């Protein structure tokens, strides 16, 4: 029994090491004065200095954040409306049809979403750039918000709504004073997921971004295609820290939100 336990611990530890090694490898070499990821010559912060002095990169970071915040906010509004629409749908078939359509963008591979949006935007004459990227990010974040909010709505007891209506509340009052406060944790989780979806997206953005506009993921891709440069390492170290903060934030949101293992996995 004891030996079995040891073997299983070794297996788990190995998995953890493999999962984290590449990330720490990147972070470690971001301090390398040697200029490549092969031999560590000496400690330096010059790569961090370099990326903070790179105005073009800073603008891209700013773009990425603006797109993420705007798309998360708008898709949260749309997603909450969507969840309410599904919740209020009277027929079971309508409900299921809406849910299936909702899930199409969640299961579709990124290339399909990217390619189809590229056709769509060119067709209706939207210039590729900030607007097309923003619209695409809103579009693929909506279904995830719906999925985060809907369970909360379904959890809510309908007698609360009837009680409010009996006591003379208008439909608007029911929404703002009864429903919204109850589903707030779901809305936060949805907003948060939308934010991370947008920050993380590469493939869809890559298709609809055009020439003038770039987000961080697209920029990293074009840098990485040119080979190793430790600026990317420094950038990834900062992004790793940022991701950790997001994870911690999300952990606390879902903890309030009951079942923690329901968390969406990201890709």
């Amino acid at each position, binding site marked *: 029994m004891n030996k079995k336990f040891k073997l299983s611990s070794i297996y788990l530890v190995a998995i953890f090491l493999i999962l984290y090694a590449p990330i720490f490898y990147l972070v470690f070499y971001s301090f390398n004065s040697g200029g490549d990821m092969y031999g560590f010559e000496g400690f330096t912060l010059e790569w961090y200095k370099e990326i903070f002095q790179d105005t073009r990169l800073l603008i891209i970071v700013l773009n990425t954040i603006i797109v993420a915040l705007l798309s998360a906010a708008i898709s949260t509004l749309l997603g909450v409306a969507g969840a309410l629409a599904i919740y209020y749908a009277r027929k079971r078939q309508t409900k299921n049809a809406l849910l299936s359509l909702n899930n199409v963008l969640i299961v579709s591979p990124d290339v399909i979403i990217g390619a189809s949006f590229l056709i769509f935007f060119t067709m209706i004459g939207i210039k590729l750039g900030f607007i097309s990227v923003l619209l695409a990010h809103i579009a693929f974040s909506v279904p995830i918000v719906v999925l985060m909010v809907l369970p909360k709505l379904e959890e809510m007891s309908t007698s609360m709504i009837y009680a409010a209506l009996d006591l003379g509340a208008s439909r608007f009052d029911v929404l703002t004073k009864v429903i919204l406060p109850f589903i707030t944790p779901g809305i936060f989780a949805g907003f948060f997921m939308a934010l991370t979806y947008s920050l993380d997206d590469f493939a869809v953005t890559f298709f609809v971004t055009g020439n003038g506009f770039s987000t961080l993921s697209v920029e990293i891709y074009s840098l990485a295609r040119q080979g190793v440069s430790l600026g990317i390492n420094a950038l990834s170290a900062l992004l790793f820290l940022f991701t950790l903060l997001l994870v911690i934030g999300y952990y606390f949101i879902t903890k309030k939100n009951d079942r923690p293992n329901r968390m969406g996995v990201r*890709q």
Partner: protein
Amino acid sequence: MGTKSRNYYLIPYVLWIALFVVAPILLVLYYSFFNIEGHFTLENYKKFFTPVYLKMTFSSFWYAFLITFFTFIIAYPTAYLLTKTKHKQLWLLLIIVPSWINLLLKAYAFIGIFGTYGAANKFLEAMGVGGKQILFTDFSFVFVSVYIFLPFMILPIFNALNDLNPSLIDASNDLGASPLTTFKRVIFPLTLDGVKAGCQIVFIPALSLFMLTRLIAGNRVITLGTAIEQHFLVTQDWGMGATIAVFLIIAMVIIMLLTGKRKSGMLR
């Protein structure tokens, strides 16, 4: 709900569905009937059934299968052992954290690790095997893909194992089943839904990831996703790209039907 009230929430939501779910898919289908000169034709479909494209489709499926298979082989024991740990939710969270790191950064890390003078080759030299070309091979492509997909496979299997009623295992043991029989007859069948969900989550993106083939496999591996990207963004032959996209959508639907209905929507 309120008998007279209309479902106004449907308006923005249905608009979203029409514009960003239905319209793009129909447009892909529409474009697949046009050749590069913009004439209505079926030649894209004819072209798809030539050996070049069929071979590419086949190898794309083969790689996706390999990736899914190895991910599963590694993920199942991990998920199983995770359910046996104390503080399992915390450990699970730690497994999931790497999946939140931008995929391109992870791919980039492997460019360094698998490079000619990278850590992997240094390790091989220290072992006495000697340096090898690792980057830009099939091995590196499958390895990095498995690395990236591992957390997505672990999570659904973990959830399935976690929901398993332990008294069933006790009952099986009491009735004299060996641990292996218990696993084969009780644990595995009852966690099959999690396995299916995991395979679906891994297989579909494995067919379509194009950045990995570009960065790690050095264009040696061409998946359906790479071909679509190539046609849309490099050769500008949207019709052919759309045709491949149609087949990818068909493959996706078939896989989803095969792996059954998945309740908890988790990711793309």
